[in-house]
């Protein structure tokens, strides 16, 4: 009897082995541990991983240490300080925290819902339909990434003020609506929605690739079964995008949980407090001395809460990569042809969003910067517009130096962060070493530490280094660069990991077989191929470094003034006009950088 009959089974078994081999080989990161599999140990990448860990560990240690430190002055490291859990018991027994925590829950869930739903909708419209002007809309929608959050908060406060807010004034043109309101800038609902808006640009950047790369074939397969639109969406499309969306969700969950600027600028006015503003309260105590211990204990707790979904997040991305493998290579992106009327409706919807959410705050800034004192925008005041603030800005001899500092800070920090991110991603994806995963987690952790707290921790670290190791960083550009690198590592690593994950490993192996050393491979092969995502990472880090006020203000000394600090100072000394002008200048610089980098990235993408 021929053995032929029994062969199918044998084959299937062999085949299953391949399926899993495929999984292991392509699926990459996170899942498989895998021993130091390669010897040509590229020490540069390991160094980057170690550097990441070190960069994050320093402020993290200070944070945790001081959360247990109790001292008469409320400061860690002072004579008379000792370790105790008092700060934590203080937090847990502080009844006034209940309301802020409940507010935070609402705020986080609400702003995530607003931010992610809008991003998802926009992503679908911009990536998958025949909507006109998609490219322009995309650039405009992500532009606010570059606006300092505090500035955005002030602009929104002025837009939504119940008495004189422009939005309210316009809303009152409708019959039956009268002052105050209808919107109240300080209400929990308002800060939630505004925070949601502020989450959109970055969410869109993260969601767009998910929406773009969901396999067309898998959707078409659902078409062919005769399933209706809703069933397809619910049972096929959304579950397929789930891992990708979940990772965005968790990332932005952390963003929202520690978001400080909007609740502080808008919420305080109405007495609406959230957890992060409560942390801030302890840092800027009215007794004049900060309660670092308590603030840090609260930050640690916040971090722990943020870390829980991170665990889930890592499992999720591991799984999503497995999904990605299955979708295969030859997919065609299905463009959803919107029927005429819906195309118009969608177009008007996106246009309205852009005008209301993107352009209005910018217009408010422009208005503030051209009026000697602020009044609600009106035609009658248009005649009083003056460019004096801009003249003033550029006439100050030190401004060019400050601007240069800022640009250098942005460029250097973005470059270093992107470089480390590329190496970290490489460690994670190619070496699959524990170091890669640890570095990835650490890079993410910085995202979970509220900016102020991180700033203070960094400050302590630098001062400590100064007094104990003779490395004087406080007040230098170097410290600011380090700070910005730390806060942007999480974002950049996410982006480069996604980008490098799409480059087949063989392309690097091929270079290795050509005798190219590790750095040559990274420089000549990996980075050029991942150029779009590296460019994205760079520009985000750049915009972030430019627009970040919290860290710059905390870490600024006389030697490292930046435009953001200048802005803060001008504002503090009542020079609203100049502060607004500076805010606008920062935004314009960042938007320009974003547009240039994205069009460069798009060109690259078109090429291969």
């Amino acid at each position, binding site marked *: 009897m021929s053995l032929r009959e029994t062969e199918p089974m044998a084959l299937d078994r062999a*085949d299953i082995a391949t399926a899993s081999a495929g999984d292991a080989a392509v699926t990459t990161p996170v899942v498989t541990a895998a021993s130091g599999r390669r010897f040509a140990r590229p020490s540069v990448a390991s160094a980057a991983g170690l550097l990441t860990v070190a960069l994050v560990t320093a402020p993290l240690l200070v944070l945790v240490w001081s959360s247990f430190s109790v001292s008469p002055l409320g400061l860690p490291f002072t004579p008379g300080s000792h370790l105790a859990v008092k700060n934590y018991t203080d937090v847990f027994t502080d009844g006034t925290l209940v309301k802020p925590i409940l507010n935070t829950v609402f705020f986080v869930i609400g702003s995530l819902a607003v931010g992610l739903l809008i991003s998802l909708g926009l992503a679908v419209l911009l990536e998958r339909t025949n909507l006109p002007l998609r490219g322009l809309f995309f650039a405009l929608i992500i532009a606010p990434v570059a606006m300092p959050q505090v500035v955005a908060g002030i602009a929104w406060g002025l837009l939504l003020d119940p008495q004189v807010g422009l939005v309210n004034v316009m809303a009152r043109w409708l019959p039956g609506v009268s002052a105050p309101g209808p919107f109240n800038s300080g209400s929990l609902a308002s800060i939630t929605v505004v925070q949601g808006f502020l989450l959109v640009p970055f969410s869109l950047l993260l969601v767009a690739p998910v929406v773009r790369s969901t396999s067309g074939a898998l959707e078409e*397969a659902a078409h062919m079964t005769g399933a209706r639109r809703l069933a397809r969406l619910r049972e096929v499309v959304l579950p397929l995008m789930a891992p990708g969306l979940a990772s965005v969700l968790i990332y932005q969950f952390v963003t929202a949980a520690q978001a400080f600027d909007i609740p502080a600028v808008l919420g305080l006015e109405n007495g609406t407090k959230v957890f992060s503003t409560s942390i801030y309260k302890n840092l800027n105590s009215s007794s004049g001395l900060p309660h670092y211990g308590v603030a840090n204990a609260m930050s640690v707790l916040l971090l722990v809460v943020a870390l829980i979904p991170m665990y889930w997040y890592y499992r999720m991305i591991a799984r999503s990569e497995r999904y990605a493998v299955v979708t295969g290579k030859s997919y065609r992106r299905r463009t959803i042809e919107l029927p005429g009327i819906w195309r118009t409706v969608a177009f008007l919807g996106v246009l309205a969003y852009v005008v209301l959410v993107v352009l209005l705050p910018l217009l408010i800034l422009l208005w503030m910067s051209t009026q000697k004192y602020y009044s609600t925008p009106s035609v009658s005041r248009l005649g009083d517009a003056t460019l004096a603030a801009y003249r003033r800005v550029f006439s100050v001899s030190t401004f060019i130096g400050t601007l240069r500092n800022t640009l250098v800070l942005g460029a250097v920090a973005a470059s270093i962060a992107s470089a480390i991110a590329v190496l970290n991603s490489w460690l994670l994806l190619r070496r699959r070493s524990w170091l890669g995963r640890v570095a990835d987690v650490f890079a993410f952790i910085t995202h979970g530490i509220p900016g102020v707290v991180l700033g203070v921790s960094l400050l302590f670290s630098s001062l400590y280094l100064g007094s104990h190791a003779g490395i004087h960083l406080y007040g230098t550009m170097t410290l600011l660069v380090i700070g910005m690198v730390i806060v942007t590592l999480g974002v950049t690593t996410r982006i480069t990991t996604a980008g490098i994950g799409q480059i087949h490993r063989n392309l690097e192996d091929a270079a290795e077989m050509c005798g190219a050393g590790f750095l040559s491979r990274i420089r000549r092969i990996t980075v050029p191929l991942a150029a779009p995502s590296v460019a994205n990472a760079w520009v985000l880090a750049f915009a972030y470094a430019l627009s970040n006020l919290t860290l710059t203000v905390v870490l600024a000394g006389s030697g490292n003034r930046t435009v953001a600090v200048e802005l803060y100072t001008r504002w503090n000394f009542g020079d609203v006009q100049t502060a607004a002008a500076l805010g606008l200048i920062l935004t314009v610089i960042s938007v320009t950088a974003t547009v240039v980098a994205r069009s460069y990235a798009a060109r690259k993408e078109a090429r291969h």
Partner: protein
Amino acid sequence: MKAVRLTGVEKTYAASGNRQPVHAVRGVDLTIAAGEFFVLLGSSGSGKTTLLRCIAGLEETTGGEIAIGETVVASPRRTVPAVKRNIGMVFQDYAIWPHMTVAQNVEFALRHARSGSLRGDAARKRVGEVLEVVGLSAFADRGATYLSGGQQQRVALARAVVATPDVLLFDEPLSNLDARLRALMRTELRRIASELGITSVYVTHDQVEALVMADHIAVMKDGEVVQVGAPQDIYRQPADVFVAGFIGEANLVKGSVADCSDAQADGHVLAVDTELGRLWAVSTKRLTQGDTVTLVIRPENLHLADHHLTGASTPVNTVGGTVERATFAGAHTELVLSCSGVRLQAQVHAFEPVEVGGEVTLSFGTRWTAAIPD
């Protein structure tokens, strides 16, 4: 089980950016009989997938008409969307939904079937039956990603047929599998399609796959159908040099007609003068003296002269040559020979004693030598 009729089907992808419009399908007329297994064969970029997707309704035609049974599903006036056509489709990369089990994949299709959705026990029973047919009963509850390529392909098939579609479409379903599995699945797919009796349209660029599986083959080139016919007809009497070369290995020898007989069982017998001397061949058309033709001589029909030719009722061609290369290929040996300066390929049985550099005489039957008019 319905027939599919295509009349002048066109599909042009509009120009975009600095890219010219692409005429992916140009005026295709085809009639696919109810219940048959029809293969679209063509090289990469010839428009096979596009045509198949037009039938599926995943792509909108830009001209012509497609009818399934009596229903016109695509015409300039009206297009029935894919979800409303009762068609099953198997994709090249299987397109199994990774977040469902095998059974759920199949059941999804059943639940949304155009022919009326089945649920509950009835659905479970039907899913069980179909998984039985494709031999996956044991895997019903396994996550769809934990399957081998061949198994995934069978899930895709089960999903496509579970709701008893009128037509079943395949887009290179086997091209991601390795050689042996491919051979196996070929037979499997064909068996299941026959058992179910569904009209099937199957896209491939592998000519052996086409020959082995098809009732009829349409050979496509640059968006057009260049020949339609049964496998043997296409193999033996290719319509042109392109088809001849595409459907199998072929030695092409040019020549001019010296004489042409009346039609016989195999067509017209020709005497053709070539570089190899006068050769005999058959042609479907009557040709006149002086016409230039290309002779198609398949390597497996070139025999070493002492070989006994069964069934050769017509004159036998013989040419002498030198063996330039002999490559053992298992089931046969591939020879490259030089005959009067013309390089010929031959496939001979591995036990034939051939020596590289040796002189041999080759013979090949008239019936097996097709003449294609230029």
